[in-house]
């Protein structure tokens, strides 16, 4: 392929647009890992549920988009809360090992995939009959309405999450529980509530991501586990555990890398790049790539003490 700036520009733009849903999935995964302290491989199951919760009303029942989105959000959030309440909470109270959490979440994702294949079939599906998005040119770069929509949705959700974590009490509670759940409980912060909120946020990000996936290309029920979750995990590790937004940034970088890899790897072998990245990450960046001058873990004392100082309710602590 003759490399020109036109091609580079187009690949960069397409990679950026595609990486929007990678970023959403990575941030959702990293947030649950940070707050709930669970490698939630069950997120792939939530993705499958979110997708078919959009597919059913849109394609099978003919509902309008806003209603379908509301339905998918409600169903996926309910499932996320059920996972936290009926599984993670029980395993946590039992002091189950990491092993049990891993197996449970993987089985959960596999179960959702099989359920999807059983009900809807194993063939790829799209959320709309036609996936044609109007395109306009800025210089030599073709920009589709889908690209702009994906970037806008992702930017809005990321900004809202940043605002929530930084400026709301519940957001600060989430960080406090992520730092030290036992200490947070002593200060009157409900860790159960924080876990539920983190799962709810993850569900919202997952539904948004699956909406973007389904309005761009057909999806197999197994794709969320085979591709999206693997990429989210790689991004989370590379960003350094606990760096929620950095996971999103790394996911965008991986999306761009995948896009540019078309210059040297045929499309058949492109997916291998993601799998190879797992080993490269583990070998070269086991603790993650430091972004922004250091990992952004908030120290236990800092968050909890700041919360204690700002909240009169917490003065009742023993």
């Amino acid at each position, binding site marked *: 392929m003759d490399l020109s700036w036109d091609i580079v520009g187009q690949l960069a733009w397409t990679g950026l647009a595609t990486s929007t849903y990678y970023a959403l999935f990575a941030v959702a995964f990293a947030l649950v*890992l940070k707050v*709930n*302290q*669970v*490698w939630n*491989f069950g997120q792939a199951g939530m993705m499958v549920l979110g997708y078919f919760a959009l597919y059913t009303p849109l394609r099978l029942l003919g509902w309008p988009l806003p209603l379908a989105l509301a339905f998918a959000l409600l169903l996926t959030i309910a499932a996320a809360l059920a996972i936290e309440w*009926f*599984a993670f909470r*029980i*395993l946590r109270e*039992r*002091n*189950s*090992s*990491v*092993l*049990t*959490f*891993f*197996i*449970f979440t*993987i*089985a*959960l994702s*596999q*179960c959702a*995939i*099989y*359920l999807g*294949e*059983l009900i809807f*079939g*194993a063939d790829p599906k799209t959320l709309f009959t036609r996936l044609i998005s109007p395109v306009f040119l800025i210089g030599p770069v073709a920009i589709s309405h889908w690209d702009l929509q994906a970037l806008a949705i992702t930017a809005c959700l990321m900004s809202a999450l940043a605002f929530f974590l930084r400026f709301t009490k519940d957001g600060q509670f989430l960080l406090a529980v992520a730092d030290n759940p036992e200490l947070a409980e002593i200060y009157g912060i409900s860790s159960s509530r924080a876990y539920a909120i983190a799962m709810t946020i993850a569900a919202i990000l997952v539904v948004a991501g699956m909406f973007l996936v389904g309005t761009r290309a057909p999806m197999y029920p*197994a794709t969320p*586990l*085979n591709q999206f979750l*693997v990429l989210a*995990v*790689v991004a989370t*590790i590379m960003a350094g*555990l606990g760096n929620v937004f950095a996971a999103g940034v790394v996911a965008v970088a991986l999306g761009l890398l995948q896009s540019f890899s078309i210059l040297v790897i045929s499309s*058949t*072998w492109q*997916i*291998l790049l*993601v*799998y*190879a990245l*797992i*080993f490269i990450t*583990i*070998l070269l960046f*086991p603790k993650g790539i430091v972004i922004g001058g250091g990992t952004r873990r908030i120290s236990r004392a800092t968050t909890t003490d700041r919360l204690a100082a700002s909240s009169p309710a917490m003065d009742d602590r023993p």
Partner: protein
Amino acid sequence: MIEYVYTIGILAGINVILASGFNLILGYGGLVSVAHPIFYAIGGYVSALLAQKLGTPIAASIIIGALISAATSVCVSLPSLRVSGDYLVIASLGFQLGLLHIINNVEITGAANGLTNIPSIVEGPHRNAIFCIVVWTAALVSVAAIRWLVSGDYGRAITAMRNDEDAFAALGRSALRIKVTLFAIGSGLAGLAGGLYAHFFLYLTPEQFGIFTSATLLTMVVVGGAATIRGPIFGAVLLTVLPEAIRFLDLPVVVMAPLQGVIFTFLIMLFLILRPQGLLGGRGGGGLEAWGRAAQGETALPREPVR
């Protein structure tokens, strides 16, 4: 009818080898890997290709296949276990998906159409009966070897590592070496099972080694009882025979496979919540709770790197 019973018996024997090897990794080693089917695939494909393309004697092909599976598992587990045991799950998943993608797309393995015309290890009118004896002999030897491994001095070292890895390391013992060894032995057994499968069924396709097989193996170990000798044997026989009952419902293939998958994975989740010790793991007698007890106070985040 008797040939059908022999075929189910052979499949059950192969599954006993697979599940017992997986139990060594998961139950005794406490290592989470979803990639066991890919070592099964490596053993099967290597053995089949050696016998088919190079004319290697079948018994030798099966042994070489098993050894290559074990060697490959070391290459996969060593980098991730050096950092954290928790990274093994993602490394194994990536390895499984990546290698399956390669098998699916290269000519020598028959790509998605599968590998056919694999030489048979036994010919003649009593092929199934003889093969059944061969497979069950291999299965019983494998189980006996695992039993010997986990009950002797080495078994005590495994338990010590499992109960307190830091204390174990403080005694100058290498947890990494034990983990890699268990992973290699378990994967080698999967390779052996793959070779036996290939030379009996004479046909291999990448679909047989995907996440469905991962889920099935997990079910066999978790439902039977992890970290017990009898549990995976019981689980393997049970989960080989049970789907045959569903088969008599005469459901279409597109329904059968996912239905089995739903049942198996649901069983895993149900057992993890309600009976984590499995059917044959009693109180204090194995099961994933053994790890839970050992991990009292441990969070789900990765521990410090294994040194």
